[in-house]
């Protein structure tokens, strides 16, 4: 690719305020990627029987059903509100999974997405413990780690990801980051104008998620991140690891000192 014409950074803007919880994205993702189903569990958690994204589930619609009133939602009787959010891998600017992967299986693509190469992954599972969003998972019977690919195959063919394509309310919008950002800012202003002042953008810029940098898949939310099972202040573990390496260096030198003292003191003593 010529350096003068870089592929623009791609991503998702998910506006949770227009999501209707139809799960078309979940279905389209499974179908396009030919992912196996993962059993049929009845959870009793509102209409959410998927629960999380995982190795074979790369989109997950969260259903937050609560007896409280939210801005911009009118309830017939009493206080009641719905929140829906289609969750996905964030394709982080500082991707914990990528920085942890010891085999180089996880790469950054020309679209700025984070991609796991199934022919390289040896299933060490380090990415699973590293991801601050609990996205990537290892499938036991397959042995490798899997997650959303931002439909790498479709992007290569100039198509948009299956979930964005199928979303009937355009809650999931796919596009160039610059476009998505202006779209998101616009929508936010519109909502604030309508009195939904609690609305904010999660992960759109490094101010909001300084620990992971900008998230290529970012969200418009109207309640605290925890409500949607998102971490309020996620951080790529690598940013903190230098403290551990420093401690290890001191510990190692301490052990060297003890070993030398033990070895030499006994020699002296026996003379």
């Amino acid at each position, binding site marked *: 690719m010529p350096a003068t014409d870089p592929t623009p950074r791609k991503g998702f803007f998910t506006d949770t305020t227009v999501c209707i919880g139809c799960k078309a994205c979940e279905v389209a993702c499974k179908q396009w990627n030919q992912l196996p189903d993962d059993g049929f569990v009845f959870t009793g958690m509102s209409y959410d029987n998927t629960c999380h994204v995982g190795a074979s589930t790369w989109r997950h619609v969260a259903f937050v059903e609560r007896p409280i009133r939210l801005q911009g939602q009118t309830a017939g009787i009493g206080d009641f509100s719905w929140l829906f959010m289609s969750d996905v891998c964030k394709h982080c600017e500082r991707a914990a999974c990528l920085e942890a992967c010891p085999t180089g299986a996880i790469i950054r693509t020309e679209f700025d997405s984070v991609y796991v190469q199934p022919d390289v992954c040896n299933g060490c599972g380090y990415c699973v413990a590293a991801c601050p969003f*609990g996205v990537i998972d290892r499938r036991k019977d397959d042995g490798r780690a899997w997650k959303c690919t931002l439909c790498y195959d479709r992007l290569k063919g100039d198509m948009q990801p299956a979930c964005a394509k199928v979303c009937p309310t355009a809650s999931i919008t796919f596009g160039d980051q610059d476009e998505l950002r202006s779209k998101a800012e616009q929508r936010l202003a519109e909502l604030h104008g309508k009195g939904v002042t609690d609305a904010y953008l999660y992960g759109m810029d490094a101010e909001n998620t300084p620990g992971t940098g900008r998230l290529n898949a970012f969200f418009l939310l109207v309640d605290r991140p925890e409500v949607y099972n998102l971490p309020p202040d996620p951080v790529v573990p690598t940013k903190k690891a230098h403290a551990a390496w420093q401690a*290890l260096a001191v510990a190692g030198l301490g052990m060297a000192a003890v070993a030398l003292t033990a070895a030499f003191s006994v020699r002296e003593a026996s003379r």
Partner: protein
Amino acid sequence: MTRRYRDDPAAMQDGRNVNPGLGVLLGEGAQQQVKRVEEAFPAPGVTEVPPVHAVATAARPTYYGQPVLKAPVWIWTVPVYFYMEGLAGAAGALAGAVTLTGDEVLRPFVRRLRWVSVSCCAVSGGLLIADLGRPSRFLNMLRVFRPTSPMSMGAWMLAAISSFSGIAALLSDAPGALRRVGDAAGYAAAVVALPFTGYTAVLVNNTAVPVWQSTRRSLPFLFTASSMTSLSSLLQLTAHGAREQQIARRFGVAGRIAELVSSEAVERDARKVPEVARPLAEGRSGALWKAGKAMAVASLALSLLPARVKWARTASAVLGTAAALSTKLAVFQAGRVSSRNPHATFDMQRAGRGAAEVGHGSSNLVQLKVEGRLIPLDQAQGPTV
């Protein structure tokens, strides 16, 4: 005759429901092998009642008590690896120090230490490979050199120390120049051993798991010290001459003291956020942790008795080994439990111990962006608490 979809058990049972006569399996997830469909359900145990402390309240919301993080997928071989590789590292380091004395009488001790180091490396390698999802691809670990990944660094250190210790062990009693080559390899092994002995602490510190991430300033000390205890315990059981015994004992007493001090430091680090420290106090991980500490105390006390009391030496060695194993198992298990508790992650980040600890924290923590302005969270309307 075309086979009908419902006659093809494989197509029916892999959970894809794609009729191979009509569809081609070329999707990004088509290579995913399926033996048991339920295997991939991303929230095992979801229908069980979540632990009381995981349940949401208005002030501390969660998503139906569900965890935020994925649990580490590692199996029991990993904590045993923490023990084994520590043994290999400590043996490599002590072998280097004893070689440096240049004392011929201690030469058999050097040789034994080198063999301990290289055999523990071999066992360690086996334990690691056993944990891989694709064991046949273990060599992919040496495909890249990635300083951001302690696992990558560990794989390289393991490769280096096993080679160096191996050469050193084989050439321990070689004549002339060859012996010097062996000693050089031994010193190289000793240098690698210094970070290698406790690196598995950094490995777990460098994760999103709250109790592991929070103890990054103390756990490397604990793992290094506990490895010293492990080695001295092994030597106390097997060492030959009186001088060997004495070296092993001094090394071990220092290791045990450091182990006790640093386990206090680990607890202190974790206790800064109560939910984070919970697995070190409760449940199976808590029991293992407390047992580890108690056995380390007992082992230290016994090792301070005069060297000629043989039963005390043996008991101290057995307790020291059990303490090291128990502590490393406890840390491993605590991480698993911690990853399942959403409050551990949320409380930690709300308390300013997420990204805020290394730079500035998220604007989510204190404020929301309203009409381009940042306003404090408690002034925003609605159910935000």
